[in-house]
């Protein structure tokens, strides 16, 4: 294609041969060859050099005038082809397929800058080009995503998993790493990689409701990806990244709306929920047409080998044959949990599944050393705690009325606050006393308020000061409440400790500064639950749970701030507890019954998933506390709750063992 288009029958002027008539035009790649009849005879001329011009053009090389018009020679009514169209035509001719070639329209900005004379210096230009060459990726040999991830440590096993999924499995895989090895990070990296390379434009991420917030935060904090949380029928088309609970996506209201959307990748967390092919969830996912699919689970098989067949069929139908052939070839007759021909099975599975065991990961998993520090409440503190608990029980002791339901949340918060500090409860009590809604019990609350006000010092705080005095090392002190945090700050600073505070009301830069200050010089980081999501606090190895959340996942998150993959030292956890409080019972069952602090990050979630109760852990705890008549009953019911948890833990352990048995063959093979 030449910049000028010559047409047979047009006249041209040649600087040597004079005016001539074009009698033939042969299209070339770089230029056309014209056959022109001049007075001196027929000449063949290439169409490029300015010796050939349409009528009357001067015969000098164009230097800066540069006004060659590509449309010359076209009829006036003919619209010039866009660059994209021209290239498509060339690609069709040269490559035999026009749809392969894409032109990035973002270049118009560069052309505009050039035309407007906005030039950068040649030094900047050459440095930029050099940088581009260094950044150039050559296939999936390296992960570009790391360049755009924040606070994501580079672990060899994660890199290997991502590369295998991208290079060998073509983006459809069951990510089945053992718990604690960072499947979420792997999925995030793969997603980011595809987005950066332009292979994915829209993604759908389906997770259990309980993990929605965590996923949204991790996508943003670690990968700078903003996900839209979809709940209603109109949400599925919003934004390139849609995050939803699988229950909401598969629901009647949304199912068809989700299917109408075009998603390039589907990520399903806790994909063992797709183990049954008869469920709506499995059928729903089977009905989605997506280029890439990642199913995340640490326990692919729980009871039956079909649970392995079903997700694999979602990913690559036919990999394990039909179910009938799978059963015949790989399942032991009479025991659906046992596999035969395991080598052959693991070879087939390696086409669609990646599983790294903790021993393969070669990541040091350091110990958690737990110390429960018990305190005796002062007389006034005990009086306050007892009175609040009594009030809570009174309210829950008889049939719920509308008013009581309104109070449910307030009382729940108050009970938690009082477990943290009297100062946390003080504000709530103050608010209650001035609220007409609570008129009926105002006297009771006023009494509580007066007791709380009379408390100047908390026993736990004295303990904290002693502990800091003994061990001069850096420490993170977690509390659930800002009022407790303010109180601790006042006391600690008064005692001459250097303190950095981190809470949800700080701006991003203030949060960064708080962490930087802690890293630089402060001895104590006082932090609320918002304690540095996604922020790397591995340089510290001591955590104090000043108060204890009733939700074990919250406790996990706290510890997870320092006990992450890659932490090189053992970490020390100090749990502050006071006897006969909700927190002491929670600690008892979590620590003593199920040894929660010895679990790996992520395992607690899987254990809780095995508890047959639709209520959350927190609700169960509060219900026991609020509806028990006396301490004896509290003890008995917490003990029975602990047994339930222990049963769930044992079930999880069995599943874990089963999975190990099935997949150990593959692990052995892949490590050789």
């Amino acid at each position: 294609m030449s910049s000028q288009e010559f047409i047979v029958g047009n006249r041209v002027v040649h600087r040597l041969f004079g005016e001539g008539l074009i009698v033939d035009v042969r299209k070339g790649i770089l230029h056309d060859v014209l056959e022109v009849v001049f007075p001196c005879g027929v000449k063949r001329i290439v169409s490029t050099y300015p010796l050939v011009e349409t009528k009357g053009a001067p015969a000098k090389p164009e230097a800066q005038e540069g006004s060659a018009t590509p449309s010359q020679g076209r009829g006036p009514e003919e619209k010039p082809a866009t660059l994209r169209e021209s290239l498509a035509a060339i690609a069709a001719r040269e490559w035999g397929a026009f749809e392969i070639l894409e032109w990035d329209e973002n270049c118009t900005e560069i052309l505009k800058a050039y035309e407007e004379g906005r030039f950068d210096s040649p030094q900047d230009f050459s440095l930029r080009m050099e940088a581009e060459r260094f950044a150039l990726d050559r296939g999936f040999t390296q992960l570009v995503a790391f360049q755009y991830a924040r606070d994501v440590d580079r672990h060899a096993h994660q890199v290997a998993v991502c590369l295998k999924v991208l290079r060998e499995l073509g983006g459809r895989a069951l990510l089945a790493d053992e718990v604690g090895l960072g499947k979420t990070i792997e999925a995030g990296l793969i997603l980011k990689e595809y987005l950066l390379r332009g292979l994915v434009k829209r993604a759908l991420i389906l997770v259990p409701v309980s993990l929605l917030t965590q996923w949204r935060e991790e996508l943003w904090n670690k990968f700078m990806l903003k996900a839209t949380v979809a709940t209603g029928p109109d949400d599925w088309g919003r934004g390139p990244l849609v995050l939803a609970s699988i229950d909401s996506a598969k629901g009647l209201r949304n199912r068809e709306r989700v299917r109408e959307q075009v998603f390039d990748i589907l990520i399903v967390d806790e994909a063992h929920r797709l183990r049954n092919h008869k469920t709506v969830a499995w059928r729903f996912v089977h009905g989605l047409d997506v280029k890439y699919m990642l199913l995340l689970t640490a326990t692919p098989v729980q009871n039956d080998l079909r649970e392995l067949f079903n997700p694999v069929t979602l990913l690559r139908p036919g990999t394990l044959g039909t179910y009938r052939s799978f059963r015949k070839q790989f399942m032991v007759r009479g025991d659906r949990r046992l596999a035969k021909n395991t080598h052959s099975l693991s070879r087939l599975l390696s086409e669609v599944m990646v599983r790294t065991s903790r021993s393969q990961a070669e990541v040091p998993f350091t110990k958690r050393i737990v110390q429960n520090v018990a305190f005796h409440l002062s007389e006034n503190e005990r009086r306050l705690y007892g009175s609040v608990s009594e009030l809570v029980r009174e309210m829950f002791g008889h049939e719920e009325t509308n008013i009581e339901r309104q109070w449910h949340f307030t009382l729940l918060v108050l009970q938690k606050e009082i477990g943290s500090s009297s100062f946390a409860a003080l504000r709530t009590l103050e608010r209650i006393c001035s609220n007409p809604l609570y008129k009926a019990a105002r006297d009771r609350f006023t009494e509580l308020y007066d007791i709380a006000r009379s408390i100047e010092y908390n026993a736990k705080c004295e303990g904290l000061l002693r502990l800091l005095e003994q061990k001069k090392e850096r420490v993170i002190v977690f509390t659930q409440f800002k009022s407790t945090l303010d109180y601790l700050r006042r006391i600690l600073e008064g005692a001459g400790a250097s303190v950095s505070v981190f809470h949800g009301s700080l701006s991003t830069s203030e949060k960064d500064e708080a962490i930087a200050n802690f890293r630089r010089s402060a001895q104590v980081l006082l932090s609320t639950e918002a304690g540095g999501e996604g922020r790397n606090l591995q340089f510290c190895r001591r955590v104090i749970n000043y108060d204890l959340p009733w939700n074990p996942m919250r406790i996990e998150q706290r510890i997870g701030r320092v006990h992450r993959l890659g932490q090189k030292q053992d970490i020390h956890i100090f749990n502050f507890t006071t006897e006969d409080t909700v927190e002491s019972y929670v600690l008892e069952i979590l620590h003593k019954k199920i040894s929660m602090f010895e679990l790996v990050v992520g395992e607690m979630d899987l254990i809780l998933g095995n508890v047959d109760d639709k209520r959350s852990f927190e609700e169960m705890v509060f219900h026991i506390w609020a509806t028990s008549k006396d301490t004896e009953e509290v003890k008995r019911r917490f003990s029975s709750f602990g047994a339930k948890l222990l049963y769930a833990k044992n079930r999880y352990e069995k599943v874990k063992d089963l999975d190990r048995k099935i997949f150990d063959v593959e692990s052995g093979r892949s490590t050789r």
Partner: protein
Amino acid sequence: MISEQGKLEDFVRRFLSQRGATVVSVGKNLLEVKLGLHLKQRFKRENLLLAFSEETATQVQEAELATPGSYLFSQLLSLAREKGTTCKTVASEKMKSLSPFLKQMKFDNFNVEIVDRESYHHSFVRFHILISYCTVDSTHEIRSILYDIALKRVSPEADGSWDRMAFDGATEQGKCLPSIGHDALTAALGEACTYLVARLRHKVLALTTRSNSLLESELERLESYYRRLIEEQHGLTIEADARSLESRERVENCKLEWQRKAATEAIRFQPRVRFSLIGLEEICVPRSLLTLRVDTHPFTEFYGLFDHASGTAKGAFCQGCNELSMIMRLDRSGAVMCGDCANHPEKES
């Protein structure tokens, strides 16, 4: 030979120095950087300690890894990308005299004299294009295409031949030189891309062959699966007519599902090649268009090109094919031709 690590370290040193930082080497693969005002605000600190190998980063714990893929490198990259998408350079005149022209040219069977000269700035545009090849995976490369604005064609002039030139950068002189217009620029970009498309034919062929073969194997797997599924569930082959309406419906549903899955696979393996313009530079070189005359009958006049920036003759224009050539011959008709055209008068271009 400098290692890739060494090249990166050298680049980072030059880059940060250019942005006002003071860079000192403090060990093997280790640079200490004192940031200037602008970079201080950017990095929110005053100093950086950069390691260019994982080994160094492990040994020196305070050092940050600055290899491609690291967070710090990405920060440097985004800093570099804020500037440097376009530039204009002007080569300075090294040789005013035209005397080397006649010495460097070879006129086989005649002598010439220079009868006229016209000095001008010969413009080139170099397009830097990022090419992404995608199927189930993707690779990238950057190609630079030099386009000769004056001669309206992709230039064969290699970068190496310009080594002897001195570029003034975006000098006042450069700024005064008018830039080429929108249409010429678009046409040039079109031609550069066209040239590239032709050059990539083999790569694209390899890409499509690979993705077709991958797709084929996936489609075979799907076919075998669905055929067996239909056989097992209904005791039918896919082609056979089911006896009951219900069976027929089920078979049809299976077929539909198969088609859907096959279509998804086709999308997954579809090859794509994406062109993105990432940089554009204009290069102006002082040159003279010479009018030359054969010194004997028929005193044919023809044209030659001399480059003042490198002091070299670029050749004379063949009256047969219009290409520049360093060796010219006078044919019987009196036309001045390049060797090829003189030997093969039927040559087309």
